């Protein structure tokens, strides 16, 4: 397991306390899981993705990640409609372990811009991890 100071926590994404990250790209936001989350889960062997067009509320479960350890839900850090899912992960779920910030899981069109500003900065997220 990685020590907290070994975690990759880039500053160009924003985080949720459930260990998802969100990155604004124009009108939409890509969502994935943090390096901390993938390290805790261990090898991810299966991903269940939502259908494009599904609408989620902030905090709602949008899919599951199956690791060798457990079945874990992933939660929408923002409310919005799914405009794309990363189908590369269907055949290669391990990409999330290998590069968690390149391998986004879903892309949302947010329904409430203010929610993005309520996410955690890198430093705030680090403080959450340090407890």
């Amino acid at each position, binding site marked *: 397991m990685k020590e907290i100071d070994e975690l990759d926590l880039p500053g160009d994404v924003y985080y949720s306390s459930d260990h998802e990250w969100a990155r604004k790209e124009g009108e939409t936001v890509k969502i994935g899981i943090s390096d901390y989350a993938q390290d805790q889960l261990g090898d991810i062997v299966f991903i269940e993705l939502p259908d494009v067009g599904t609408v989620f509320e902030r905090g709602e479960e949008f899919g599951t990640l199956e690791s*060798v350890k457990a079945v874990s839900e992933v939660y929408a850090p923002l409310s919005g409609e799914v405009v794309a899912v990363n189908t590369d992960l269907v055949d290669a779920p391990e990409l999330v372990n290998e590069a968690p910030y390149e391998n986004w899981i879903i892309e949302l069109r947010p329904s409430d811009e203010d929610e993005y500003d309520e996410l955690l900065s890198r430093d705030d997220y680090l403080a959450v991890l340090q407890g």
Partner: protein
Amino acid sequence: MTSEPMQPARTVLYDWHLAQHATMAEFGGYQMPLWYPTGAKQEHRAVLTGAGLFDTSHMAVLTVAGSDARSLLQHCFTRDLRRCIGASPGPLTTGRCVYGLFLKEKGTVLDDAIISQLSEDRYMVVVNSGMGPAVSEHLGAQQGFRVEIIDYSGRLGKIDLQGPAAALVLEAVLAEPDRVLADMIYFSCKGDIDPAGGAPVLLKNGTPLLVSRTGYTGEFGFELYLAVADTVGFWEQLIAAGERFAITACGLAARDSLRTGAVLPLSHQDIGDWLFQNTPWSFVLPWDEQDGRFSKPFIGAEALLGSSEVDYTAAFAGYDPRKIPVMDNTVVLDEDGEAIGRVLTCTTDMAIDRVGERIVSMATADSAGRPPDFHPRGLSCGFIRTTRQCRSGEQVRLTDGKRSIPVEIRQDIRPDRTARRSMREMRNQ
């Protein structure tokens, strides 16, 4: 002993695991590695394609010695020691090992064990983590047997070296590899855990050890026992000698998925404090082929034969890697949606996948149907306990109320396992 909360114990390899950044968890009262940064998937696969190294020093080792040692074990163990070796079957003899159970009077499982005969009247009994005191007490409580029972818990290191390259790795560090390995058949052992014991097996550096051709992965390999003080050095020697075979340190997650794919039970999870009946492991009972009775009396036998309650344990495999979390509300549903039981184990064997109607393993020969470019996604697998018998091939669903996965009842899970391959073949690769 104090009344302080019990701190998990550490094996002698604990610092090595931490230095390798293993993800640790408590298991059986010990802090153990779940996986290393390699990841459980690659660790699992290393045991099918090369070699894996497991710290199993948490397991408990007893010896039972004395003029009544054999009759005590015959009274307490489910195998008939007069007829448990080979096809004939013949008696347990010095240098042979046998797997079975210790049952309680009511026919429930105290623990499972491998018993190895070390000499004419001395036996090594290896049981699960933390079970040394309970099994010692159980054996010691039987009246009228002149035996000495020694609990070696905490005094020995134990390392499992498993995988098709295991003999090649081990022979690089043994002082006399040909003498030790040449005729070493499945479920046999050489050397001793006590330096005073007979016919020692030595490493090149003179360290004595016990080499047992057994394991808990379904794959070819060894369980290796030696003094605590020699364990870390030996582990590092094996890692160095195994480098060219891509030897991989493996944690408990890989151990669990490997044993499940090999249809081996985890004591206190798949077998435990309930009646031992109608399981995939009924070969451990001393069935008398002629009349469907037992060939000897033993503790628990009458309860097994006289029971009126009936349940069934069966193995299953799914169709993709998805697991079901094993919780109180996890149930097995039959084709009509009736709840017929519960899930004991559910994990993912990461070295197998379905190819048409069959399950194929990374260890399946291409001539036996492994497709070129076989990249298994893994299949969920495990054991269920049901109130009615499930037939092989039957489709059932496992659900925790939220997720529901279809699985197939099976006699076996991961095909083409290497555990029983000949030593000659494995040394001449």
